[in-house]
């Protein structure tokens, strides 16, 4: 099913302007292009809705997949001009939240698709929208009840007003009850700042979806149900879609495996998998290849505990995950999980587990690092309580390095550097840096989609602000350099220029072609010693013998040559 989100926005003046930011933010962040979104204003002068039956409700966008046009339309409401436009098109007037909710219910019922997740966010800074009109209040309660019955989750995104915002008299009955009682207080606290509101919207908008649900097995028969969540995933540029040149319609790709000679399609049972080692072909069934990877069923199996300082910083191979108990699967999970969390945190230890996260995945060892709940001043949860799952490297993953022997710095030199470090201090925040590559791609697409002349400029936040740094450091840099570098030393130059004398021509001179005589090459094939040759030599050899290879990896080149010459 698809996810859907309706923004129901109080059209009283203050709120509109700020909220547009939230909205376009959400548009950008929607996890899937198939998600549906709507933007509805209430308390407007003008009315607009598909059924034409509600007054003072303005359906700016009905529930649909957001596209370029919508982004433009929402953008139009931004800034001073936007406010003017909003005032002209919608204005503000009488308020009936009941009607607005009813209208939203209609939006939902008009959707023929199956929706897996329905959320409605009410944005307002008025705690008594009907100014005590009890009929309207009652109507709103009934309508919200109807909505909630159909599985819509109603959230309140409210901003603080000078005289405070009291949820209790009216909105408490409108919104969906929180996931658990403890969240209640948190949710009902209004936001002081718009940024907080944005954060809150974002936190709500991101549906947590467990990557996997499995058992944390402490010992024979002691299984705690947990969900694994990915809290940080490397965002990549979205993958391109192939389009037909003539019509720009998407095309589908089909991959077929067929027999080269007969041309008939090959069924899975008609193919096998193979690898060559020590000049011998080793063949296995596809099933066997999968079976080799299987060690045990998915789960986390406790090995023991270690003090936190035993978790080495450089033992890192992939981003961490997060686990949280699944009370719905095994009752009592939350309590044991909570006890384990409390004690691990208190004693500053982590739990070491063997972890099989999916079927047919070989085991990995993980450190479960306790995390206590943290909230910020805006009462937004920064870190939830649970365990971080840190993946640990095996012996194969550790590379042997030969650290160079170097003189160490004197305390005077270190002290000078300390001054430099202190001058360039800043407070690190993990969400402070945008990915310039993705931002640029997004801006480019935006420009193309919205027919803009040029993409909006992106600021590269991970570029050092060199001028500012230089200014802050002042004479310190020179002082440090005087302490560590001799007068004639050029730190930007090449090292002592021992071996570089040969190609000072800027590398323009092409290296002489490297070739190996044919008999020598054949001898290498015979003895299996091709690996000793370098990649350029192998490439040259491929060319020479007319071996066609798509690969550029050494092994691929070797395989190709062996195929050709070994016969």
């Amino acid at each position: 099913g698809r996810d859907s989100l309706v923004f129901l926005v109080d059209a009283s003046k203050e709120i509109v302007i700020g909220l547009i930011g939230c909205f376009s933010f959400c548009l950008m962040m929607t996890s899937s292009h198939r998600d549906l979104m709507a933007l509805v204003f209430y308390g407007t002068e003008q009315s607009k809705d598909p059924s034409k039956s509600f007054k003072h409700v303005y359906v700016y966008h009905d529930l649909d997949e957001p596209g370029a046009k919508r982004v433009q339309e929402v953008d139009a409401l931004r800034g001073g001009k936007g406010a003017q436009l909003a005032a002209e098109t919608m204005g503000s007037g009488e308020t009936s939240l009941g009607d607005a909710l009813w209208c939203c219910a209609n939006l939902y019922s008009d959707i023929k698709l199956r929706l897996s997740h329905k959320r409605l966010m009410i944005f307002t800074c008025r705690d008594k929208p009907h100014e005590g009109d009890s009929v309207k209040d009652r109507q709103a309660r009934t309508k919200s009840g109807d909505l909630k019955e159909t599985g819509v989750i109603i959230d309140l995104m409210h901003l603080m007003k000078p005289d405070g915002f009291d949820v209790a008299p009216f909105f408490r009955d409108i919104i969906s009850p929180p996931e658990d009682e403890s969240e209640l207080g948190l949710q009902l606290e209004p936001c002081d700042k718009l940024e907080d509101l944005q954060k809150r919207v974002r936190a709500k908008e991101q549906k947590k979806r467990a990557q996997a649900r499995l058992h944390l097995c402490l010992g024979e028969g002691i299984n705690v149900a947990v969900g694994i969540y990915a809290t940080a995933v490397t965002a990549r540029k979205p993958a391109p879609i192939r389009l037909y040149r003539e019509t720009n319609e998407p095309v589908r790709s089909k991959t077929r495996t067929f027999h080269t000679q007969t041309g008939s399609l090959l069924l899975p049972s008609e193919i096998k998998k193979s690898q060559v080692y020590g000049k011998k072909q080793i063949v296995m069934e596809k099933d066997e290849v999968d079976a080799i990877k299987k060690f045990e069923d998915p789960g986390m199996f406790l090995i023991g505990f270690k003090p936190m300082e035993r978790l080495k910083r450089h033992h890192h191979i992939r981003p961490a995950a997060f686990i949280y108990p699944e009370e719905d699967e095994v009752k009592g999970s939350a309590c044991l999980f909570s006890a384990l969390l409390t004690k691990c945190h208190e004693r500053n230890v982590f739990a070491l587990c063997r972890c099989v996260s999916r079927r047919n995945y070989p085991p990995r060892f993980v450190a479960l690092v306790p995390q206590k709940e943290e909230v910020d001043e805006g009462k937004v949860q920064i870190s939830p309580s649970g365990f971080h799952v840190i993946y640990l490297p095996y012996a194969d993953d550790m590379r042997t390095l030969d650290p160079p022997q170097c003189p160490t710095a004197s305390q005077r030199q270190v002290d000078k550097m300390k001054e430099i470090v202190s001058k360039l201090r800043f407070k690190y925040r993990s969400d402070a840096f945008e990915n310039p590559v993705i931002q640029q791609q997004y801006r480019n697409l935006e420009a193309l989609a919205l027919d803009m002349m040029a993409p909006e400029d992106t600021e590269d936040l991970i570029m050092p602000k060199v001028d500012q740094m230089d200014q802050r450091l002042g004479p310190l840099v020179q002082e440090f350099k005087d302490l560590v570098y001799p007068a004639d030393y050029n730190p930007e130059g090449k090292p002592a220029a021992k071996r570089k004398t040969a190609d000072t021509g800027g590398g323009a001179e092409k290296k002489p072609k490297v070739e190996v005589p044919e008999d020598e090459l054949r001898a290498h094939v015979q003895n299996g010693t091709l690996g000793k040759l370098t990649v350029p030599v192998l490439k040259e050899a491929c060319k020479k013998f007319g071996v066609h290879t798509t690969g550029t990896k050494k092994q691929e080149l070797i395989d190709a040559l062996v195929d050709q010459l070994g016969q």
Partner: protein
Amino acid sequence: MDVGFSMSNSAPGEEPPFELAKKVIQKFVQRQVFAETKDELALVLFGTDSTKNSLDQDGQYQNITVHRNLMIPDFELLEEIEHQVHPESHQADWLDALVVCMDLLQTETKGKKCDRLNISLLTDLNTRASSEQIDVIIENLKQAGITLQFFLPFPVEDDEESGRDADRGSPGHPGMGKGLSEEQKSSVDIVKHIMLNLDEENGLDEIYSFRNAIEQLCMFKRIERRPMAWPCQLTIGSCLPIRIVGYKAVTEEKLKKSWTTVDAQSNKKDDVKRETVYCLDDDNETEVEKDDTIQGFRYGSDIVPFSKVDQEQMKYKHDGKCFAVLGFAKQHTVRRHQFMGTQVIKVFSGKDDEHAGVALSALIRALDELNMVAIVRYAYDRRSNPQVGAAFPCIKKDHECLIYVQLPFMEDLRQFTFPSLENNKKFTPSDTQLSAVDSLIDSMMLLEEDDNGDQKDMFKVHHIPNPAFQRHFQCLHHRAVSPSTPLPPMEPWLKAALECPDVIAERCQGPLEEVKRKFPLTEVEKKKKLKTSAQIFGKDSGEPDAKMAKGDEEEDYNLADIAEGSVTSVGSVDPMHICQQLTRRLEQLLSNKNTAYFMKSITCIQAFREQSVKLGDANLYNGYLQSLKTSIPNRGLEVFWDLLVQDAVTLISKDEVKGSTVSKTDADQFLVTEEKKKEAAAPPAEDTGDVDDLLDMM
């Protein structure tokens, strides 16, 4: 390897030294073959009945056979060792054999670059060696830079140690038999003399016992890669560069080789071709040429065409290689769980540049003393995407470096909120519960104090070889050696290496029982353990599957088409024709008997039913469903039927369509009582299960 007659002697109940020595060589060669090292290997046998070596002259160097010259080891060699190396009935002087090996190494490595030359001698030392030449031999070994290793049936002790209790080992260690013979004793002295001459300090460490060696060789070699230096400059502002060099220190290693697809009959790769075609999303699936396609990207619901050339032109560009400090932050603000990427880079000062060394050392020490970390922009080269990351100071006894790890971008983060565990009274553990967990932690601490009072880690993950690789090679090896037998079970040592240490497993039994008592855990009976088809096949079902995650997208696509195609076509004018089309598609889907296809089939049947009700014609549908039911056992479609039952897709009853011959109760019973009896109203359908018959019936 010594294959002389004394090698087959053994005390009762013990494996003869010959077999053990053979095992050592086999294990060693296996490791070499699978590690695909470029090391070359020769095999010289001595004590053989025949003689074949280049020094064979005037009755000298007899009974020594060069079995294989210096080559990269392969399966051929393994097979030869298995089938051609047997115990023979002569004896040869092991020092002569050593000389043959030295000669072989020297002649066959001429003109080759070798990092190391080594001779491993496997023998029981049971021949009298003539020690006259020994000093010449040692001198030659030293000159040629050849190292030596001895593998013996018994352990050799240090003189001082063995002097203290001279008889230690003699009866105890297997392989010693009744103690050493005179020949062996004198040979051991020669061996020690040579080894200590070559390396005064550690010479004796290179003398192994067979058993010891077999144990150490049981696991396949870990994957090793030569570290690649990444020279760059660390910059602070515009005028403070420090020459550095980075090395990947930790990264998830992958197997070097991947599987190729071959034809099952011929085992040839060339007989199989994979081809990707592109087709339009229309009824005919019109194929289009790859060249007639362009690329586009989604922007919300729109698709924006964006050619590769334009994309390249407009994409984010940067100046290439860089390691630039953005600023410095407190170490604790960079949290461990926020580390991104798949690697750790160690940064040292530039090669042969002690000034850079001092400058970097000053930075490392300054950061360490201030508990700070450098936040840097890192770009590997011009083509790769820049990252933001943290460089931590790392000061070890013998070296200093920065440790670089990638940090997240804003886009990478997902701020999930979870209900608080602490403030929830339902889940707050009691004091007794907490203390049960406390003692569990006590009993399962993986650190123990050794004799010196130091903490010793009993379970170092980074010392365990990746079990996936070990298993992979074990199976490959098995298949190569015995192709027609099923794959072997997991090696016991590997299984054991992944388990909790025995001491801990024993120690935690009590506390675990206590935890079990104190924390009641009950598996929640799912309201419906039987899920509906949508839950089972829905993409976001909780149960992930590695295979699903990667592959089956393609199939799904076509299926969706067939199913959706049929559903939409119901609306058109000739209902009779349409329904026939539907059933045909259904049969098409069901013939695949793949669970993923079943869901589509159910969608079809539901659509069929819906339309039939709308048209007021129940017979076609009821007839089809009934015949389908009878054919279930024959066609092995029970799984599908269960799904149909759970989705409650039953016959159309009189209540729904007047013309139906099925009563409401019958319709309900239809799904429930499967074995009871065949429906009365059903047309007499044969249990053929044949698709054509079913269709003809329509």
